[in-house]
Structure formats: structure tokens, C-alpha cells
């Protein structure tokens, strides 16, 4: 055997989990992202009194595949004066960053994607933040005013809100005392409570900042359709555009997973340590079975035969999942499967709820203006996050050194941060009032530079 072959073999032997999970991520995430888009369109349609995609497949179920095919065979336009290489690379960067950062996430105790690394959470947020280069370079390479303005907005926005998100995460990490994904969840089990209840303000800040980081409404200014056409994506079409889109939705999954891991108890069920709440273990199976039963109920009401079949199919799938979730509970020899399966169920459920929140906000709220966005970030969220980190630290010292009750200490921090929040909001209102009453803007344009932050 040649040394090269030996080296390759050694490499594969050491890293086969990572290689396989890499392939799985690249293969599965686009599909998942496609169906998240479908879910979003369906939900949006539901909230807006319409039906959404109905044509391709029953209830539009094949729409993502049709969209993907359409995007693949679409003409790939590169503007004449674009910087071709950068234009080509940018969407790839965006998507790669999002997909790579998934490597350190664990979807349940049994489903670690690649490896539980020492700096797990930092790896996730650090690598996913590299996606911004895709946006900036794409906007710059397009050589279009809309694109470059989208890119500039995006940079300023991401830099600002990443600070807030990072500080919010620090509050959670203080409680967990580790950066390892699995150890964070274990810490929550040990505490017997999700960190969202110990540090609610930090969770709130992280929710807001993560919406801004993933460029979702009401913070979707970099791609604000009504202002900048499509922001940095204006000149993109076909598959490159699809890559951007994919990166964005993959990022949503990433921030959802981070929030779930750190604040929502990861794969733990509600009340993980309370014995008499053990009936909650039956909930996953019952829940999926209920969904299946509802599908059966709806199957008879479908107008088209194909949709009836589809409903039966969905019902069957639900029942199978329910069975898979229920059998390990009931059959003693299979008991060892329970944490893995149920953990994955709870984790996915929490991520879905998180993404649902994103969608809900998108359908409901108008969009912020750029300066308002910056003010919210720099005048409210970041100071609040700093105060929160400080307060959580003090509370932990009170608890560890002076033996305070944990809940009392944490309640104190929450009250302190909320008071700060109120103070900041009042300050902000006063500033806004002063600014509006100062002078009519047309003659004396404000010299404030929104990008200076």
C-alpha cells in the first residue's frame, strides 16, 4: 500500500462521522429548507385568507421541488460589469457558512451532527456569521446601486445585532458554564429548569437579534423588497439566487437550534426532572397520533381524490411515527431508545416553534427603517444585554458565594434588567421627541450617519 493511500484510509477512519454528516447536511438541508419555504407560504396564505400553493402535488406538496427545478433551469444572468469571480463565489460563501455551522449542532442526545467540539456554541455562531461575506461580496460584485446599498445595510445590521446576540448568549453561557453543546443541555437538566426561565431577558434579546441576523421581517432591510427591490440579491437569478435563499433558511435553522439548545432546554422535555410529570413522555406519541387522526378526519372532506389519498398518506406517516415513539416506552428491552427518539422529537418541535415565531412576526409587522433599526440595536438592545450579563453574573455570585436562593437571585436580575429596559425606552422616546420637535428635516438634514455604528 502506498503511503498516500494509507493516509487517506487513516483520514477516513478518523473522520468518517464528520464526512458522512457533511454529506447528509448537504443532501438534506436544501430539502428541509424547501419545505420550510412551503410551510411559510402555507402559513402566510392561511393568515391572509387565501390558500397558497395548491397546484403542484396535493396541497402544493411538490411545490419546493418544482421551484428547485425552475431555479436550476433558469437562465443564469451575470451583469455585464459585475466582478465575475466574486459574483460567482459570493452565494457559495453564504451557503457554505450556514451549512458548516450546522456541523456542531446536536439534534438530540443521539443525533450529534458532526462532533461535540470544545467550543461548540462559539463555532456555530462564529461560522454562521461568516455568511455575511457572501452578502457583502455579492452586493459589491453585482455593481448595482441597489445591491451595494443592500450589502452596506446588511453589514451594519449584522455587526450591530451580532454584538447584542453574542452578549445575550453570554448570559446563558454564564449559567451553563461551558461551551459544549451537550454539556449546556446537561446543565439545564442539572438545574432542572430551562435557562429561558432563569434569563428571560437574554432570551428575548436573542430572539430579536437573531431575527435581525437572519434578515427576517421586521428587520429584513437588506433585502427590503419595496425599497431596494431585493437588496444584495437584486442581480442574482437562477441557481445562485437559490443558494442565497438556501443559506438564509439554513441560518434560520441554525439560530433556532442555538436558541433551543441554550435557552429552551435542548432535547429535554418540559419539567425534565419532575417525576410525576413523567406522563409527558407519552406526549410525543399522542401528539403525532392526534395529528394523524385529524388527517383521517380531513381526508373525507378533500375535493379531489388525489388529495384524499394524500391525507391518508400523511395520516399513515403520523401513525408510524407515533408507533416508533411509543413502542420504546412500552417495550422494556427497547427502553434505551427513548432518550434519543424523544429528544429528537422535542428538539425539532422547539426549533419549529421558533421558526414559526419568525414567520408569524413577518406576516404581522411592518418593516423598520434603517435608522430606527440602528437605534433599537445600539440604544436599547446592546445596553440591555450588557446590563443583563452584569446582573446575571452578580446573581450567580450571590447564589454561589452567599447561598441565596437561585430563583430569588434570578428574579432580582430580571427585575433589574427590565427596569433598565424601561429606562432605556423612556430615554429613547425622549430623544425621539426632542428630535422630532427640533426642526423640520428638509432644510437642515440631520448629519447623523446611520452607518457609523
Amino acid at each position, binding site marked *: 500500500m502506498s*503511503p498516500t493511500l*494509507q*493516509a487517506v484510509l*487513516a*483520514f477516513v477512519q*478518523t473522520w468518517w462521522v464528520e464526512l458522512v454528516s457533511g454529506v447528509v447536511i448537504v443532501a438534506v438541508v436544501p430539502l428541509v429548507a424547501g419545505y420550510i419555504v412551503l410551510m411559510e407560504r402555507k402559513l402566510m396564505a392561511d393568515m391572509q385568507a387565501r390558500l397558497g400553493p395548491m397546484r403542484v402535488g396535493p396541497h402544493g406538496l411538490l411545490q419546493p421541488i418544482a421551484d428547485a427545478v425552475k431555479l436550476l433551469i433558469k437562465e443564469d444572468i451575470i451583469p455585464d460589469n459585475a*466582478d465575475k469571480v*466574486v459574483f460567482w*463565489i459570493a452565494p457559495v460563501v453564504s451557503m457554505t457558512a450556514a451549512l458548516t455551522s450546522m456541523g456542531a449542532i446536536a439534534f438530540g442526545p443521539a443525533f450529534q451532527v458532526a462532533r461535540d*467540539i*470544545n*467550543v461548540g456554541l*462559539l*463555532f456555530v*455562531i*462564529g*461560522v454562521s*456569521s*461568516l455568511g*455575511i*461575506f457572501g452578502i*457583502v*461580496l455579492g452586493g*459589491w460584485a453585482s455593481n448595482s446601486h441597489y445591491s*451595494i446599498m443592500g*450589502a*452596506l445595510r446588511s*453589514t*451594519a445590521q*449584522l*455587526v450591530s445585532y*451580532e454584538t447584542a446576540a453574542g452578549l445575550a448568549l453570554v448570559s446563558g453561557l454564564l449559567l451553563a458554564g461551558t*461551551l459544549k453543546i451537550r454539556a449546556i443541555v446537561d446543565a439545564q437538566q442539572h438545574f432542572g429548569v430551562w435557562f429561558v426561565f432563569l434569563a428571560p431577558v437574554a432570551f428575548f434579546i436573542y430572539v430579536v437579534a437573531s431575527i435581525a441576523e437572519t434578515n427576517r421581517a421586521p428587520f429584513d432591510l437588506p433585502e427590503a423588497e419595496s425599497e431596494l427591490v431585493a437588496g444584495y440579491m437584486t442581480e442574482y437569478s437562477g441557481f445562485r439566487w437559490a443558494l442565497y435563499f438556501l443559506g438564509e433558511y439554513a441560518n434560520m435553522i441554525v439560530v433556532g437550534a442555538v436558541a433551543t439548545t441554550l435557552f429552551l432546554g435542548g432535547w429535554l422535555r418540559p419539567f425534565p426532572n419532575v417525576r410525576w410529570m413523567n406522563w409527558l413522555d407519552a406526549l410525543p406519541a399522542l401528539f403525532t397520533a392526534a395529528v394523524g387522526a385529524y388527517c383521517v378526519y380531513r381526508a373525507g372532506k378533500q375535493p379531489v381524490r388525489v388529495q384524499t389519498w394524500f391525507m391518508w398518506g400523511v395520516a399513515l406517516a403520523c401513525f408510524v411515527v407515533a408507533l416508533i415513539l411509543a413502542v420504546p416506552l412500552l417495550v422494556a428491552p427497547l427502553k434505551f431508545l427513548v432518550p434519543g427518539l424523544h429528544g429528537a422529537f422535542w428538539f425539532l418541535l422547539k426549533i419549529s416553534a421558533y421558526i414559526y415565531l419568525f414567520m408569524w412576526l413577518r406576516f404581522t409587522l411592518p418593516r423598520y427603517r434603517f435608522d430606527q433599526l440602528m437605534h433599537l440595536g445600539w440604544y436599547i438592545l446592546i445596553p440591555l444585554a450588557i446590563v443583563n450579563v452584569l446582573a446575571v453574573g452578580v446573581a450567580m455570585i450571590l447564589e454561589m458565594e452567599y447561598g441565596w436562593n437561585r430563583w430569588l437571585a434570578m428574579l432580582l436580575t430580571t427585575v433589574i434588567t427590565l427596569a433598565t429596559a424601561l429606562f432605556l425606552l423612556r430615554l429613547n422616546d425622549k430623544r425621539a421627541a426632542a428630535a422630532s420637535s427640533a426642526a423640520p428635516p428638509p432644510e437642515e438634514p440631520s*448629519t447623523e*450617519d446611520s*452607518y*457609523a455604528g
Partner: protein
Amino acid sequence: MLDKVIFFFFAGVAILSAGLMVTRRNAIHSAVFLITTLLATAGIFLQLRAEFIFIAQIILYVGGIMVLFVFVIMLVRLDVALHQIQFSRQKWVALLVTLALALEVGVMLWSSRKVPGQGFLLPNAVPAGKLPPNTEALAGRLFDAYLLPFEIASVLLLVAMVGAVVMAKKRT
């Protein structure tokens, strides 16, 4: 063997893109290649089992400083600079001086190889498996022995922040 492959891959990428960074006319391209260099260096850090420095390099250097660079390059439109002379007049002298320096350092490194036991081919002292958890060890050291430098660094950052704001603020 594996270590070697990883090292040479990252080192090659780092040196190649560093060279391209210095020679590209377009500042954005330079920035892209610098980002590549920094990421490759992060890979080297990881190969050295310095996980925290690896991630700090990615978050701070690449995700923070380089974003700032790209941002400023886009803000000061450099279309004009593209058509001007790229290198300064002293370039040949500069190259000569740098080559001399390279020779000097190279010879120094090469000759130190001969010192037995502690030369530059010094083997690894601590096996990879026996290293303490990197983040914890780093934190312990940082907040214990190097607390004062840490505080000074934070003051430095504060000063830099204030300075940058004052500098970039529009004079009215």
C-alpha cells in the same frame, strides 16, 4: 502523515492567498484573499489544538475586523484607484530589503536546526491527548496571571473605539 497533509494544505493556502492579497489591484480582491489567509491560519491553529484561538480568529478577525475592512472599502469608492499605479516608487528597493531580511531570518532558522535537543526541529513536548481542555486552561490563565494585561487590553479597545468614533464623525 495526516498532520502533515493538513499542515501543508493550510500553509499552502495561507501563503498563496497572502501573496495574491499583496499583488491584487482591486482592494476588495485583496480583502477576499486576506480572509482566505486568515481562515487558513485558523486551520493551522486548530491543527495546533488551540480551539479557542481558532474560533477567536474566525469571530474577531474574519467576522469582525475583515467585515469592517470590506465595509470601508465599499464606503470609499475606489474606482479611481483601480487605474492608478499600484505600487509605490520604492518598490524595488523595498523588495531588495525584504529579500535581505528573508535571507537573514531564513539562515538564522536553518542554522539553529543544528543545536541538539532544542533546535527548530524540536519534537512535540506534550501529546495531543494529554492537553488540558483548551478553553478552560486559557480562561484560567487569562483571568488569573494575565488579568492586568486583560484589563489594559480592554482599555485599549475602549480608547480605540472612542478614537474611531471621533475620527469618523462628520464635522459640522
